[in-house]
């Protein structure tokens, strides 16, 4: 038998290698497999370099940047702050409203503008509708990752109804440019409140239906329980956020813990993973957090619709938006994927000196190697799916 140390490193036996019947360890060879960039279950153009030993994953190296268009450089070269908003839309294209809201909030904090209360309520309604639409994509495509096609179609039927509401409000179905600095581009159309109420009544039983179809499906539970467990301390150390952090049992939601807008006037509960079918922080926990958040979003929408005040939808703005020299702000908001932060620095001119976008999907993806090591190759699809990445935001 050849001494292990004389072999090249990739031949050295890894712990957990197969043992033959005589008790001697059989050497297995590490193999590198590429997943992506063109692969349906990477949810976009993401390349995962997977180092496997048999079917066990030894390491995963994500390669990102295929969609990189340097949003931050674009933002610096705009002639005013308002022009950045359509670019912010295109970061996380599954939840555009929350992106533009985050940037508008950053600009408003720098300018110290108070927006009218009606605007705040409309923004909350829109953001929560967007959260449902975004979670529907996450849940639907996650079903596909697990081999269930039907829930995906149901999710998309419902998402379409939300997109119709957006379309009647601002004309766009995906990238809205609706939240402007100091206000909104349009007021709500006449039948919006009525139709949104109808949608809420319609959608509540649908959540239960998707749960019955997918969440508590035996095969789905077996595929996702105890897979990709993200422990609490690792989640915090890697600054995971959104359902990823709450799935690990940490009760942390920026809408409550770093409140902005009128979320503190509405009643709702952050949802956390409790390890109902497996360990706390597994893929199933992240999935159920999304399902339950949709219900909470419905509660928020209904309350906000009931409280919606009358008034103007645009605050008085200075003619040219020029924050003070050296004004800087880091604003964080809770998007469907987690903490979206904008760090904006002004040099006193009409265009930002520096814009840094801290995307939740970018940060959540960086924890993927941690939670994939030791998993089976087939489970990697489910682990990557449970992170709910949008590559437009990872790469910016």
């Amino acid at each position, binding site marked *: 038998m050849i001494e292990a140390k004389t072999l090249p490193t990739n031949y050295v036996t890894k712990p957990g290698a197969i043992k033959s019947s005589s008790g001697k360890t059989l050497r297995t060879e590490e193999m590198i497999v590429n997943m992506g960039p063109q692969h349906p279950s990477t949810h976009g153009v993401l390349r995962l370099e997977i180092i496997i030993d048999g079917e066990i994953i030894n390491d995963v190296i994500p390669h*990102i*940047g295929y969609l*990189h268009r*340097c949003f*931050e*450089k674009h933002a*610096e070269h705009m002639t005013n702050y308002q022009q950045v908003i359509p670019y912010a839309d295109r970061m996380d294209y599954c939840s555009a409203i929350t992106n533009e809201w985050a940037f508008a909030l950053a600009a408003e*904090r720098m300018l110290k503008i108070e927006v009218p209360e009606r605007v705040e309520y409309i923004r909350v309604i829109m953001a929560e509708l967007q959260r449902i639409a975004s979670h529907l994509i996450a849940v639907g495509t996650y079903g596909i990752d697990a081999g269930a096609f039907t829930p995906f179609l149901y999710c998309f039927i419902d998402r379409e109804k939300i997109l119709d509401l957006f379309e009647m409000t601002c004309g766009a179905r995906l990238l809205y440019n609706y939240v402007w600095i100091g206000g909104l581009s349009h007021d709500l159309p006449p039948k919006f409140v009525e139709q949104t109420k109808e949608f809420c009544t319609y959608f509540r039983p649908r959540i239960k239906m998707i749960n019955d179809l997918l969440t508590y499906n035996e095969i789905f539970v077996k595929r996702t329980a105890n897979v990709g467990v993200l422990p609490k301390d*690792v989640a*915090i*150390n*890697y*600054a995971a956020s959104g359902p990823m952090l709450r799935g690990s049992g*940490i009760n*942390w939601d920026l809408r409550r*813990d*770093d409140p902005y807008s009128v979320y503190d006037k509405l009643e709702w509960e952050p949802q956390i993973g409790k390890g109902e079918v497996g360990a706390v922080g597994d893929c199933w926990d992240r999935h159920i957090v999304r399902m339950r958040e949709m219900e909470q979003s419905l509660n928020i929408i209904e309350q906000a619709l009931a409280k919606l005040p009358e008034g103007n939808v645009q605050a008085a703005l200075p003619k040219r938006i020029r924050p003070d020299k050296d*004004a*800087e*702000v*880091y604003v*964080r908001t809770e998007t469907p994927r987690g*903490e979206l*932060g904008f*760090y904006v*620095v002004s040099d006193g001119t009409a265009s930002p000196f*520096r814009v*840094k976008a*801290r995307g939740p999907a*970018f*940060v959540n993806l*960086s*924890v993927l190697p*941690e939670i994939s090591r030791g998993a089976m190759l087939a489970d990697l699809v489910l682990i990557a799916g449970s992170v709910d990445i949008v590559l437009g935001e990872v*790469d*910016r």
Partner: protein
Amino acid sequence: MTAQDIHDKLKAAFGDAVQEAKLDAMQPWIRIAPNRTAEVCAWLHDQPEMKLDYLMCLSGMDYNNGKLGVVYHLSSIEHKHKIVLKTECPKDDPHVLTVSGVWGTANWHEREAYDMYGIIFDGHPDLRRLLMPDDWDGHPLRKDYKVQEFYHGMKVPY
């Protein structure tokens, strides 16, 4: 804990590593020496009354005055307080000590700052470009960046 308390405690523990502070700003910040970032951050992370365990954001900066910088936005899950740390380094010799040993999330953020600004994080386990291709010339977010004319025979500026 207020920014003033954090600043005083930091000053008492590290002395001249704390270079400057602006505590009356909208978001108070403290500037620390680039070669002391790792120990200062580890201390802030571990002290039970600080417990700044959540690195919200790490941004590279080009101040356009011959200096590059790194900005750390920290918060605490338990105590819910926040603080901003800054550090600066000269543009022609940009070295900052890595904090990826303190917060795992800093790993990718630092790679991005290296990619975009060319800041070298000493001690980083895997300092490769993150968003741009490995053989790209220059660091795009620097204020004096000129885009390369050709990349593998393809014309770059459009």
